[in-house]
Protein backbone atom coordinates (compact mmCIF):
# COMPACT_ATOMS: atom_id res chain seq x y z
CA UNK A 1 0.00 0.00 0.00
CA UNK A 2 1.31 3.41 -0.88
CA UNK A 3 1.30 5.69 2.13
CA UNK A 4 1.25 9.06 0.45
CA UNK A 5 1.12 11.07 3.67
CA UNK A 6 4.31 9.51 4.99
CA UNK A 7 6.28 10.42 1.88
CA UNK A 8 4.63 13.84 1.70
CA UNK A 9 6.22 14.57 5.08
CA UNK A 10 9.64 14.08 3.51
CA UNK A 11 8.72 16.56 0.79
CA UNK A 12 7.64 19.15 3.33
CA UNK A 13 10.73 18.64 5.48
CA UNK A 14 13.07 18.89 2.51
CA UNK A 15 11.34 22.12 1.45
CA UNK A 16 11.86 23.63 4.89
CA UNK A 17 15.43 22.35 5.05
CA UNK A 18 16.28 24.10 1.77
CA UNK A 19 14.82 27.29 3.22
CA UNK A 20 17.44 27.14 5.97
CA UNK A 21 20.37 26.80 3.56
CA UNK A 22 19.42 29.80 1.47
CA UNK A 23 22.98 30.70 0.61
CA UNK A 24 23.35 27.32 -1.02
CA UNK A 25 20.46 28.17 -3.31
CA UNK A 26 22.10 31.43 -4.35
CA UNK A 27 25.46 29.91 -5.11
CA UNK A 28 23.83 27.15 -7.13
CA UNK A 29 21.88 29.74 -9.06
CA UNK A 30 25.13 31.59 -9.71
CA UNK A 31 26.80 28.59 -11.29
CA UNK A 32 23.64 27.85 -13.28
CA UNK A 33 23.81 31.37 -14.69
CA UNK A 34 27.49 31.07 -15.57
CA UNK A 35 26.79 27.90 -17.52
CA UNK A 36 23.86 29.55 -19.25
CA UNK A 37 26.07 32.47 -20.23
CA UNK A 38 28.74 30.06 -21.48
CA UNK A 39 26.42 27.95 -23.62
CA UNK A 40 24.52 30.99 -24.84
CA UNK A 41 27.78 32.57 -26.04
CA UNK A 42 28.97 29.33 -27.62
CA UNK A 43 25.77 28.94 -29.62
CA UNK A 44 25.76 32.60 -30.61
CA UNK A 45 29.30 32.13 -31.94
CA UNK A 46 28.39 28.88 -33.71
CA UNK A 47 25.47 30.49 -35.53
CA UNK A 48 27.79 33.41 -36.37
CA UNK A 49 25.03 35.73 -37.50
CA UNK A 50 23.15 33.11 -39.52
CA UNK A 51 19.37 33.25 -39.22
CA UNK A 52 18.98 29.50 -39.14
CA UNK A 53 20.97 26.27 -39.16
CA UNK A 54 19.75 22.70 -39.52
CA UNK A 55 16.21 24.00 -40.02
CA UNK A 56 16.15 25.73 -36.65
CA UNK A 57 16.20 29.49 -36.23
CA UNK A 58 18.71 31.15 -33.95
CA UNK A 59 15.94 32.39 -31.68
CA UNK A 60 14.61 28.86 -31.21
CA UNK A 61 18.10 27.53 -30.56
CA UNK A 62 18.72 30.12 -27.89
CA UNK A 63 15.37 29.24 -26.32
CA UNK A 64 16.39 25.56 -26.41
CA UNK A 65 19.54 26.34 -24.41
CA UNK A 66 17.73 28.57 -21.91
CA UNK A 67 15.02 25.96 -21.28
CA UNK A 68 17.67 23.26 -21.08
CA UNK A 69 19.59 25.23 -18.49
CA UNK A 70 16.39 25.75 -16.51
CA UNK A 71 15.79 21.98 -16.50
CA UNK A 72 19.42 21.37 -15.56
CA UNK A 73 18.78 23.54 -12.52
CA UNK A 74 15.65 21.53 -11.70
CA UNK A 75 17.40 18.20 -12.12
CA UNK A 76 20.43 19.25 -10.12
CA UNK A 77 18.58 20.50 -7.05
CA UNK A 78 17.91 17.11 -5.45
CA UNK A 79 20.08 14.95 -3.21
CA UNK A 80 23.49 14.75 -4.88
CA UNK A 81 24.76 11.36 -5.95
CA UNK A 82 27.88 11.47 -3.79
CA UNK A 83 25.76 11.94 -0.68
CA UNK A 84 24.03 8.60 -1.29
CA UNK A 85 27.36 6.96 -2.06
CA UNK A 86 28.87 8.40 1.10
CA UNK A 87 25.97 6.93 3.09
CA UNK A 88 26.64 3.52 1.57
CA UNK A 89 30.36 3.80 2.20
CA UNK A 90 30.02 4.78 5.85
CA UNK A 91 27.18 2.35 6.44
CA UNK A 92 24.68 5.06 7.42
CA UNK A 93 22.34 3.67 4.78
CA UNK A 94 21.60 0.73 7.13
CA UNK A 95 19.82 3.14 9.46
CA UNK A 96 17.50 4.05 6.59
CA UNK A 97 16.96 0.39 5.74
CA UNK A 98 15.71 -0.29 9.26
CA UNK A 99 13.04 2.36 9.07
CA UNK A 100 9.55 1.62 7.81
CA UNK A 101 9.78 3.32 4.42
CA UNK A 102 11.06 2.60 0.97
CA UNK A 103 14.44 4.31 0.57
CA UNK A 104 14.34 5.16 -3.19
CA UNK A 105 10.85 6.65 -2.81
CA UNK A 106 11.84 8.54 0.31
CA UNK A 107 14.66 10.27 -1.57
CA UNK A 108 12.42 10.97 -4.55
CA UNK A 109 9.86 12.71 -2.37
CA UNK A 110 12.54 14.60 -0.48
CA UNK A 111 13.88 15.76 -3.85
CA UNK A 112 10.41 17.05 -4.76
CA UNK A 113 10.61 19.32 -1.73
CA UNK A 114 14.07 20.74 -2.33
CA UNK A 115 13.42 21.12 -6.05
CA UNK A 116 10.15 22.94 -5.38
CA UNK A 117 11.94 25.39 -3.11
CA UNK A 118 14.67 25.98 -5.66
CA UNK A 119 12.18 26.52 -8.50
CA UNK A 120 9.97 28.91 -6.53
CA UNK A 121 12.66 31.06 -4.96
CA UNK A 122 15.38 31.07 -7.60
CA UNK A 123 14.74 29.53 -10.99
CA UNK A 124 11.26 30.81 -11.73
CA UNK A 125 11.88 34.51 -10.94
CA UNK A 126 15.19 34.54 -12.80
CA UNK A 127 13.96 32.76 -15.92
CA UNK A 128 10.75 34.78 -16.04
CA UNK A 129 12.81 37.96 -16.18
CA UNK A 130 15.01 36.40 -18.82
CA UNK A 131 12.04 35.52 -21.01
CA UNK A 132 10.70 39.06 -20.68
CA UNK A 133 13.94 40.79 -21.65
CA UNK A 134 15.41 38.41 -24.21
CA UNK A 135 14.25 37.58 -27.71
CA UNK A 136 13.07 34.05 -27.05
CA UNK A 137 10.23 32.03 -28.54
CA UNK A 138 7.36 31.08 -26.27
CA UNK A 139 4.98 28.19 -26.98
CA UNK A 140 1.88 29.49 -28.76
CA UNK A 141 -0.89 27.61 -26.97
CA UNK A 142 -1.51 26.55 -23.40
CA UNK A 143 -1.58 22.90 -24.58
CA UNK A 144 2.10 23.11 -25.46
CA UNK A 145 2.86 24.55 -22.04
CA UNK A 146 0.98 21.71 -20.37
CA UNK A 147 2.64 19.06 -22.51
CA UNK A 148 6.04 20.61 -21.82
CA UNK A 149 5.47 20.48 -18.06
CA UNK A 150 4.30 16.86 -18.25
CA UNK A 151 7.28 15.94 -20.39
CA UNK A 152 9.75 17.74 -18.13
CA UNK A 153 8.27 15.95 -15.11
CA UNK A 154 8.61 12.52 -16.73
CA UNK A 155 12.16 13.51 -17.69
CA UNK A 156 12.85 14.30 -14.04
CA UNK A 157 11.62 10.84 -13.02
CA UNK A 158 13.79 9.14 -15.67
CA UNK A 159 16.85 11.08 -14.54
CA UNK A 160 16.15 10.29 -10.89
CA UNK A 161 15.76 6.54 -11.47
CA UNK A 162 18.85 6.22 -13.64
CA UNK A 163 21.03 8.38 -11.43
CA UNK A 164 19.90 6.60 -8.27
CA UNK A 165 20.57 3.19 -9.84
CA UNK A 166 24.07 4.39 -10.56
CA UNK A 167 24.54 5.73 -7.08
CA UNK A 168 23.60 2.33 -5.68
CA UNK A 169 26.41 0.69 -7.65
CA UNK A 170 28.64 1.68 -4.75
CA UNK A 171 27.04 -1.21 -2.88
CA UNK A 172 28.90 -3.54 -5.23
CA UNK A 173 32.02 -1.60 -6.16
CA UNK A 174 34.57 -0.06 -3.84
CA UNK A 175 35.60 2.64 -6.28
CA UNK A 176 33.11 4.01 -8.79
CA UNK A 177 35.11 7.05 -9.95
CA UNK A 178 35.67 6.15 -13.61
CA UNK A 179 32.25 4.64 -14.20
CA UNK A 180 30.46 7.64 -12.74
CA UNK A 181 32.44 9.93 -15.06
CA UNK A 182 31.47 7.90 -18.13
CA UNK A 183 27.87 7.93 -16.94
CA UNK A 184 27.70 11.69 -16.46
CA UNK A 185 29.34 12.27 -19.81
CA UNK A 186 26.86 9.98 -21.56
CA UNK A 187 23.98 11.65 -19.77
CA UNK A 188 25.01 15.23 -20.56
CA UNK A 189 25.75 14.49 -24.21
CA UNK A 190 23.09 11.95 -25.23
CA UNK A 191 20.31 13.72 -23.35
CA UNK A 192 20.79 16.68 -25.67
CA UNK A 193 21.26 19.03 -22.72
CA UNK A 194 23.84 21.18 -24.51
CA UNK A 195 23.70 20.04 -28.14
CA UNK A 196 20.28 19.16 -29.57
CA UNK A 197 20.15 15.74 -31.20
CA UNK A 198 19.48 17.12 -34.69
CA UNK A 199 23.03 18.51 -34.81
CA UNK A 200 24.55 15.09 -34.09
CA UNK A 201 26.23 13.00 -36.77
CA UNK A 202 23.60 10.59 -38.17
CA UNK A 203 24.78 7.40 -36.46
CA UNK A 204 25.02 9.10 -33.08
CA UNK A 205 21.57 10.60 -33.42
CA UNK A 206 20.14 7.14 -34.13
CA UNK A 207 21.95 5.78 -31.09
CA UNK A 208 20.70 8.60 -28.87
CA UNK A 209 17.12 8.05 -30.05
CA UNK A 210 17.27 4.44 -28.81
CA UNK A 211 18.56 5.42 -25.36
CA UNK A 212 16.59 6.71 -22.36
CA UNK A 213 18.66 9.90 -21.90
CA UNK A 214 16.86 11.83 -24.65
CA UNK A 215 13.78 11.85 -22.44
CA UNK A 216 15.50 13.99 -19.80
CA UNK A 217 16.25 17.18 -21.76
CA UNK A 218 15.84 16.71 -25.48
CA UNK A 219 12.12 15.84 -25.61
CA UNK A 220 10.86 18.56 -23.23
CA UNK A 221 13.12 21.19 -24.85
CA UNK A 222 12.07 20.21 -28.35
CA UNK A 223 8.39 20.34 -27.36
CA UNK A 224 8.92 23.79 -25.89
CA UNK A 225 10.44 25.29 -29.03
CA UNK A 226 7.99 23.46 -31.31
CA UNK A 227 10.53 21.20 -32.99
CA UNK A 228 8.35 18.30 -31.90
CA UNK A 229 4.72 19.16 -32.61
CA UNK A 230 1.29 17.71 -33.35
CA UNK A 231 0.90 13.95 -33.03
CA UNK A 232 4.67 13.57 -32.69
CA UNK A 233 4.33 14.97 -29.17
CA UNK A 234 2.16 12.08 -28.07
CA UNK A 235 4.60 9.60 -29.56
CA UNK A 236 7.49 11.27 -27.74
CA UNK A 237 5.58 11.27 -24.47
CA UNK A 238 4.91 7.57 -25.02
CA UNK A 239 8.62 6.93 -25.50
CA UNK A 240 9.32 8.90 -22.33
CA UNK A 241 6.75 6.93 -20.37
CA UNK A 242 8.25 3.68 -21.60
CA UNK A 243 11.71 4.75 -20.42
CA UNK A 244 10.33 6.03 -17.11
CA UNK A 245 8.83 2.60 -16.41
CA UNK A 246 11.95 0.79 -17.65
CA UNK A 247 14.31 2.90 -15.54
CA UNK A 248 12.03 2.52 -12.53
CA UNK A 249 12.20 -1.27 -12.92
CA UNK A 250 15.98 -1.00 -13.21
CA UNK A 251 16.09 1.01 -10.00
CA UNK A 252 13.88 -1.57 -8.24
CA UNK A 253 16.10 -4.39 -9.45
CA UNK A 254 19.35 -2.71 -8.36
CA UNK A 255 17.81 -1.69 -5.04
CA UNK A 256 16.59 -5.23 -4.28
CA UNK A 257 19.99 -6.70 -5.03
CA UNK A 258 21.71 -4.00 -2.98
CA UNK A 259 19.49 -4.32 0.07
CA UNK A 260 19.76 -8.13 -0.06
CA UNK A 261 23.50 -7.73 0.09
CA UNK A 262 23.21 -5.70 3.27
CA UNK A 263 20.75 -8.16 4.81
CA UNK A 264 22.93 -11.16 3.99
CA UNK A 265 25.90 -9.54 5.63
CA UNK A 266 24.22 -9.71 9.00
CA UNK A 267 21.60 -6.94 9.06
Amino acid sequence: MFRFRLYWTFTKKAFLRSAVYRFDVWSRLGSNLIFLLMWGSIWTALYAGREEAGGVSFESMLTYIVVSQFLTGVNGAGTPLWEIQEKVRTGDISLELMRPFDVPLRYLFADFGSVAFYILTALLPLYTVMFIFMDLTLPSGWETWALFIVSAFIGFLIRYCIEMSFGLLSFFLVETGGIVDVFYFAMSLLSGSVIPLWFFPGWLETMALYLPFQGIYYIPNAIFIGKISGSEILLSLGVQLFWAVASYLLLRFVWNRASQKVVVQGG
Partner: protein
Amino acid sequence: MSVVKYFDLYFKLISAGVRAQLQYRFAFVMRIVGLITSYTGTAVTMWIMLYQFQELGSWTFYEMLFLFAVAVLSWGFCIILFFHFRGLDTYILNGTFDRFLVRPINPFFHFMAMKFDVGAFGQFLFSIGIFIWVSFELQLDWTIGKSLFLLLSVAGGILIQGGLLVMISALAFWTTKSEQFYWVPCFRPEI
Protein backbone atom coordinates in the same frame (compact mmCIF):
# COMPACT_ATOMS: atom_id res chain seq x y z
CA MET B 1 65.26 29.70 6.39
CA SER B 2 66.73 29.90 2.93
CA VAL B 3 64.84 29.25 -0.29
CA VAL B 4 67.01 26.19 -1.04
CA LYS B 5 66.04 24.66 2.26
CA TYR B 6 62.39 25.31 1.51
CA PHE B 7 62.72 23.48 -1.79
CA ASP B 8 64.37 20.56 -0.06
CA LEU B 9 61.63 20.49 2.56
CA TYR B 10 58.90 20.73 -0.08
CA PHE B 11 60.13 17.63 -1.84
CA LYS B 12 60.45 15.73 1.43
CA LEU B 13 56.90 16.61 2.44
CA ILE B 14 55.31 15.83 -0.88
CA SER B 15 57.16 12.55 -1.33
CA ALA B 16 55.60 11.42 1.94
CA GLY B 17 52.23 12.50 0.60
CA VAL B 18 52.72 10.71 -2.69
CA ARG B 19 53.68 7.47 -0.96
CA ALA B 20 50.55 7.71 1.17
CA GLN B 21 48.38 8.08 -1.93
CA LEU B 22 50.04 5.22 -3.76
CA GLN B 23 49.00 2.87 -0.99
CA TYR B 24 45.60 2.75 -2.60
CA ARG B 25 46.70 1.65 -6.05
CA PHE B 26 43.26 0.85 -7.39
CA ALA B 27 41.74 4.14 -6.32
CA PHE B 28 44.74 5.94 -7.81
CA VAL B 29 44.39 4.24 -11.21
CA MET B 30 40.61 4.72 -11.23
CA ARG B 31 40.99 8.41 -10.54
CA ILE B 32 43.35 8.85 -13.48
CA VAL B 33 41.05 6.81 -15.73
CA GLY B 34 38.11 8.92 -14.57
CA LEU B 35 39.88 12.20 -15.24
CA ILE B 36 41.00 11.18 -18.71
CA THR B 37 37.49 9.94 -19.50
CA SER B 38 35.79 13.15 -18.49
CA TYR B 39 38.24 15.33 -20.43
CA THR B 40 37.87 13.08 -23.45
CA GLY B 41 34.13 13.53 -22.99
CA THR B 42 34.48 17.31 -23.24
CA ALA B 43 36.63 16.88 -26.35
CA VAL B 44 33.98 14.62 -27.93
CA THR B 45 31.31 17.21 -27.12
CA MET B 46 33.44 19.80 -28.90
CA TRP B 47 33.81 17.52 -31.90
CA ILE B 48 30.04 17.00 -32.18
CA MET B 49 29.40 20.71 -31.80
CA LEU B 50 31.73 21.47 -34.69
CA TYR B 51 30.53 18.54 -36.80
CA GLN B 52 27.78 20.68 -38.37
CA PHE B 53 29.26 24.13 -38.00
CA GLN B 54 32.91 23.37 -38.85
CA GLU B 55 34.17 26.38 -36.97
CA LEU B 56 33.55 28.43 -33.85
CA GLY B 57 34.44 32.06 -34.47
CA SER B 58 37.06 30.99 -37.07
CA TRP B 59 38.53 28.37 -34.72
CA THR B 60 38.55 24.85 -36.14
CA PHE B 61 38.18 21.68 -34.07
CA TYR B 62 41.93 20.98 -33.78
CA GLU B 63 42.70 24.54 -32.78
CA MET B 64 40.00 24.38 -30.12
CA LEU B 65 41.43 21.08 -28.93
CA PHE B 66 44.85 22.65 -28.57
CA LEU B 67 43.43 25.51 -26.55
CA PHE B 68 41.56 23.04 -24.38
CA ALA B 69 44.76 21.04 -23.74
CA VAL B 70 46.58 24.19 -22.60
CA ALA B 71 43.75 24.91 -20.16
CA VAL B 72 43.71 21.33 -18.86
CA LEU B 73 47.48 21.29 -18.37
CA SER B 74 47.59 24.47 -16.33
CA TRP B 75 44.54 23.41 -14.32
CA GLY B 76 46.23 20.05 -13.63
CA PHE B 77 49.30 21.76 -12.15
CA CYS B 78 47.05 24.12 -10.26
CA ILE B 79 45.26 21.19 -8.63
CA ILE B 80 48.56 19.62 -7.60
CA LEU B 81 49.84 22.78 -5.96
CA PHE B 82 46.76 24.56 -4.65
CA PHE B 83 43.57 22.54 -4.75
CA HIS B 84 43.74 21.36 -1.13
CA PHE B 85 43.34 24.99 -0.07
CA ARG B 86 39.70 24.24 -0.62
CA GLY B 87 39.74 22.46 2.75
CA LEU B 88 41.26 25.45 4.56
CA ASP B 89 37.93 26.52 6.04
CA THR B 90 37.56 23.18 7.85
CA TYR B 91 41.00 23.66 9.44
CA ILE B 92 40.11 27.15 10.57
CA LEU B 93 36.71 26.10 11.87
CA ASN B 94 38.07 23.15 13.85
CA GLY B 95 41.05 25.11 15.16
CA THR B 96 43.49 22.66 13.58
CA PHE B 97 45.04 25.47 11.57
CA ASP B 98 46.98 26.37 14.72
CA ARG B 99 49.29 23.47 14.08
CA PHE B 100 50.59 25.26 10.97
CA LEU B 101 51.13 28.45 12.94
CA VAL B 102 53.27 27.00 15.72
CA ARG B 103 55.89 25.42 13.46
CA PRO B 104 59.04 27.32 12.52
CA ILE B 105 58.26 27.45 8.81
CA ASN B 106 56.06 29.69 6.72
CA PRO B 107 52.44 28.58 7.35
CA PHE B 108 51.42 29.21 3.74
CA PHE B 109 54.26 27.06 2.50
CA HIS B 110 53.49 24.36 5.03
CA PHE B 111 49.84 24.19 4.03
CA MET B 112 50.76 24.15 0.36
CA ALA B 113 53.23 21.28 0.82
CA MET B 114 50.75 19.27 2.87
CA LYS B 115 49.25 17.55 -0.14
CA PHE B 116 50.37 16.62 -3.61
CA ASP B 117 47.53 15.19 -5.63
CA VAL B 118 49.15 12.64 -7.94
CA GLY B 119 45.75 11.93 -9.48
CA ALA B 120 46.29 15.05 -11.58
CA PHE B 121 48.72 12.91 -13.54
CA GLY B 122 45.64 12.17 -15.65
CA GLN B 123 45.63 15.78 -16.85
CA PHE B 124 49.26 15.50 -18.02
CA LEU B 125 48.64 12.32 -19.94
CA PHE B 126 45.57 13.83 -21.58
CA SER B 127 47.09 17.16 -22.56
CA ILE B 128 50.40 15.73 -23.76
CA GLY B 129 48.50 13.21 -25.89
CA ILE B 130 46.45 16.06 -27.36
CA PHE B 131 49.54 18.21 -28.01
CA ILE B 132 51.16 15.40 -29.98
CA TRP B 133 47.99 14.61 -31.95
CA VAL B 134 47.23 18.25 -32.80
CA SER B 135 50.87 18.91 -33.76
CA PHE B 136 50.57 16.20 -36.41
CA GLU B 137 47.14 17.28 -37.63
CA LEU B 138 47.97 20.96 -37.97
CA GLN B 139 51.63 20.32 -38.85
CA LEU B 140 52.84 22.70 -36.21
CA ASP B 141 56.52 23.38 -36.31
CA TRP B 142 57.77 23.75 -32.81
CA THR B 143 60.43 26.44 -32.61
CA ILE B 144 62.14 27.25 -29.33
CA GLY B 145 60.25 30.52 -29.15
CA LYS B 146 56.89 28.80 -29.53
CA SER B 147 57.69 26.12 -26.97
CA LEU B 148 58.81 28.76 -24.51
CA PHE B 149 55.64 30.72 -25.13
CA LEU B 150 53.55 27.62 -24.43
CA LEU B 151 55.44 26.91 -21.21
CA LEU B 152 55.07 30.48 -20.02
CA SER B 153 51.37 30.63 -20.82
CA VAL B 154 50.82 27.39 -18.88
CA ALA B 155 52.81 28.87 -15.98
CA GLY B 156 50.69 32.01 -16.16
CA GLY B 157 47.53 29.92 -16.15
CA ILE B 158 48.68 28.05 -13.05
CA LEU B 159 49.42 31.26 -11.17
CA ILE B 160 46.16 32.98 -12.10
CA GLN B 161 43.96 30.00 -11.23
CA GLY B 162 46.03 29.16 -8.14
CA GLY B 163 45.83 32.76 -7.00
CA LEU B 164 42.05 32.72 -7.30
CA LEU B 165 41.76 29.45 -5.37
CA VAL B 166 43.95 30.72 -2.53
CA MET B 167 42.17 34.07 -2.44
CA ILE B 168 38.76 32.45 -2.12
CA SER B 169 39.98 30.00 0.51
CA ALA B 170 41.45 32.85 2.50
CA LEU B 171 37.95 34.36 2.82
CA ALA B 172 37.46 31.67 5.45
CA PHE B 173 39.66 33.67 7.85
CA TRP B 174 36.83 36.21 8.04
CA THR B 175 33.74 34.15 7.25
CA THR B 176 34.85 30.68 8.52
CA LYS B 177 33.17 29.27 5.41
CA SER B 178 34.53 29.50 1.91
CA GLU B 179 33.49 26.23 0.27
CA GLN B 180 30.38 27.81 -1.25
CA PHE B 181 32.38 30.43 -3.10
CA TYR B 182 34.21 27.75 -5.02
CA TRP B 183 31.92 27.79 -7.98
CA VAL B 184 33.49 31.08 -9.00
CA PRO B 185 36.74 29.59 -10.31
CA CYS B 186 35.55 25.99 -10.61
CA PHE B 187 32.90 26.51 -13.24
CA ARG B 188 34.04 23.30 -14.86
CA PRO B 189 32.37 20.06 -13.81
CA GLU B 190 35.58 18.05 -13.82
CA ILE B 191 38.19 18.37 -11.09
